[in-house]
């Protein structure tokens, strides 16, 4: 055999090995994962561990700047801002993960079908997506939540609906590219039915580019939910949620009480920032070509 051997390790890395390698190789990804872990922990354990009850009011202690007692100060009805900020993580994270999961599944299924079989299904899907995307997305979310009712559930549905076009279009394009690829045809020669080729061969290869989109979307879904509550839709007071807290704090910032708006806003930024950084790292973990 006169082949030139390619560079490569003698045995391929297992999935866990590969994940650790990606984390070690790219410090930014590591940072993102650490932050993500912290956020996740706050969401799960936060409400149990915070020093004060997020809903407990105390008129006497209203509008106090940050101090050792209250790290982030207190708001206008005396609630501890720090506890509310940490407790809000759970709500915001739940909304965004649920919304993105819904739109990922719906968009993937629709996009795969349209991208693989084409024909009138494709045309129909394109028309529907065009109509959804004809609305400025935030405006559409406003409209949906306004129509269906002011509840957390409806924010999730609204966010999911406006996100579906991104996934559907992306999956459709990726499936389309690979539909005539050699390995798809080979899979058919191996006895796979069309559905099997799509689900087991083509779609898994479309995952790496989608990973970036998923994490960007998570960040954007949080921004969206916060924006909606900022204008009074969706989550209602006194539930702790970053958007509402910024809205309430906005009234006081012009008179100098900055801590009520700044801390929740900062936490919001950090969460979204983490998800954006996470995107590239997730893609590296999922893409087999990054395995040396």
């Amino acid at each position, binding site marked *: 055999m006169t082949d*030139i051997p390619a560079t490569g390790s003698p045995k391929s890395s297992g999935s866990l090995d590969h994940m650790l390698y990606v984390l070690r190789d790219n410090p930014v990804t590591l940072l993102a994962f650490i932050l993500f872990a912290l956020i996740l922990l706050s969401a799960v354990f936060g409400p149990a561990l915070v020093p004060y009850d997020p809903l407990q009011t105390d008129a006497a202690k209203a509008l106090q700047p940050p101090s050792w007692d209250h790290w982030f100060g207190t708001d206008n009805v005396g609630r501890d801002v720090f506890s509310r900020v940490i407790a809000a993580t759970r709500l915001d994270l739940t909304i965004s993960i649920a919304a993105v999961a819904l739109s990922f599944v719906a968009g993937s299924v629709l996009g795969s079908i349209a991208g693989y079989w084409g024909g009138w299904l494709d045309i129909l899907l394109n028309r529907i997506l065009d109509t959804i995307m004809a609305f400025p997305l935030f405006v559409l979310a406003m409209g949906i939540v306004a129509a269906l009712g002011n509840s957390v559930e409806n924010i999730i549905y609204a966010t999911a609906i406006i996100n579906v076009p991104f996934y559907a279009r992306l999956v459709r394009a990726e499936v389309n590219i690979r539909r005539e690829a050699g390995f798809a045809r080979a899979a058919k*020669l191996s*006895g796979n039915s069309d559905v099997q080729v799509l689900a087991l*061969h083509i779609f898994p290869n479309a995952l790496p580019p989608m990973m970036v989109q998923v994490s960007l979307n998570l960040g954007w879904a949080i921004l969206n939910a916060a924006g909606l509550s900022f204008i009074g839709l969706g989550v209602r007071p006194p539930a702790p949620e970053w958007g509402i807290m910024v809205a309430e704090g906005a009234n006081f910032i012009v008179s100098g009480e900055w801590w009520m708006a700044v801390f929740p806003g900062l936490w919001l930024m950090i969460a979204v920032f983490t998800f954006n950084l996470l995107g590239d790292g997730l893609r590296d973990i999922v893409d087999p070509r990054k395995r040396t």
Partner: protein
Amino acid sequence: MLSVKDLAVTFRTRRGPVDAVRGVSFDVGRGEILGIVGESGSGKSVTSYALMRILDAGGSIRAGEAVYSGIDLHSASEKDMRDIRGREISMIFQNPRAALNPIRKVGHQIADVLRQHARATRHDARAKAIAALEAVRINDAEARCEAYPFELSGGMCQRIVIAIALACDPQLLIADEPTTGLDITTQKAVMDLVRDLIRERGMSSILITHDLGMAAQYCDRILVMKDGAIVEQGLPLDIFSNPQHPYTRKLVDATPRDGESIRSLLPAEDRRPEPARRILDRPLLEVRDLTKTYQGKSGPVQAVRGISFSVLQGESVGLVGESGCGKSTTSEILVRLLDPTSGKILFDGRDLAEVPAPAFGRDPRRGDIQMVFQDATDSLNPRHTARQSIAEPLRRLGERLRGAALAARIEELAGLVGLPLALLERFPHQLSGGQKARVGIARAIALDPKFLILDEPTAALDVSIQAVVLNLLVDLRAKLGMSYLFVSHDLHVVRLLCDRVVVMKAGEIVEQGPTQAVMENPQHPYTRTLLSAAPTPPLRRAVA
């Protein structure tokens, strides 16, 4: 005119510095056509990029000098280099349509170069551009000037690229694989044009190619490169009849040529006798009046217009033609990935076309007809290891093997195709071109098919690897008794491998018959054109 001494080029990569060119020295005389031949990774293209100082960001000339008319190209300033590029030394590349700006009219692109080197002003640029197009023998130059690249054929685009390169009358033309991606007849037209223009203008030229045969036909002298160094140089005839360096000998052996056997493609020490093969008298596959019509944008397109041929049991038939002739469509129909518009495909007497393509995956005959694809990179699932790729047909069809039986069969197949067992756990991007080709072949023969369609299986491989893979295919067909349909544009390979050949053009069969007869005595004018267009390397004298 150009004198290169000890040129060394290094690339900075994530894994450390890589020496792409290691101390290369050669001269190009006035009016001479020098060929640089090598396989992928030999450094032949990098050398020319270094001369023109258009290396990628990570590359730099580490040492050496390249003196052109008294100027050292290595140490010249960027401003001087810009003057030299296009005006003294020009370059043309492979993949001509991608080499042109897609949103700019071709006339303007030529005019840009003319005006950059002050050979035209705004007012006479168009006229001079038309003149440049006429110089490369483009008819209707004035109309072509206003065209965009996407409106032109591949051959026409390459002419435009040549026109741009020659617009300012350079002294030296570097051609980097200028015929890759073009049809054989177009290749010949382009190479003839380049050679004629060079001779007419008294220019020198460097032709970079992986095709030793083409280099021998068009070049005055040849350099052979491997791993960044020159291993041999000399006249084409000498190189072919008396190669000194073992690598040159391997390359010369591997270049398919008339009058040789398939074993002669391999180095002498690897040649074992050709295995015996039986061709039975009964047909395995009979194609009758096959047609395929598509619905195109401007009306129906007839890709295949009623073709008929047959393949006997144990026989290898070659299917040749240029792009657009319908051979790919035909092979897709035969392997049942596509349905014909009409016609019969009799396999062992029963019509395959009765079962529509989407349902054929469940037909018991699925395992009898398999395919080896052209681009092994594209045909292996990037997420599957080699083992998983080969396992796929074994798990879904036939006996549906699992566990130990599956593993045993996979290892047996790996042995048959000469794939080291350790490589089974690797992903496609961790395998070389030849290794991927072997995996593709192992997968195709996994179910012991009676009929194998090979769609240009070695087109993307280096010539020495091609030699090995072709010989492997020869061994396999004897061992497993398979019939082949070998689709290719390379007539020399078809001659070595196939018993009969079918020539297609524009959806029809123009000629078919025993290979020897068709190749030596072609009846149809198109067959004759094809044969004369294929580059013919010089015959070798018998090695003493």
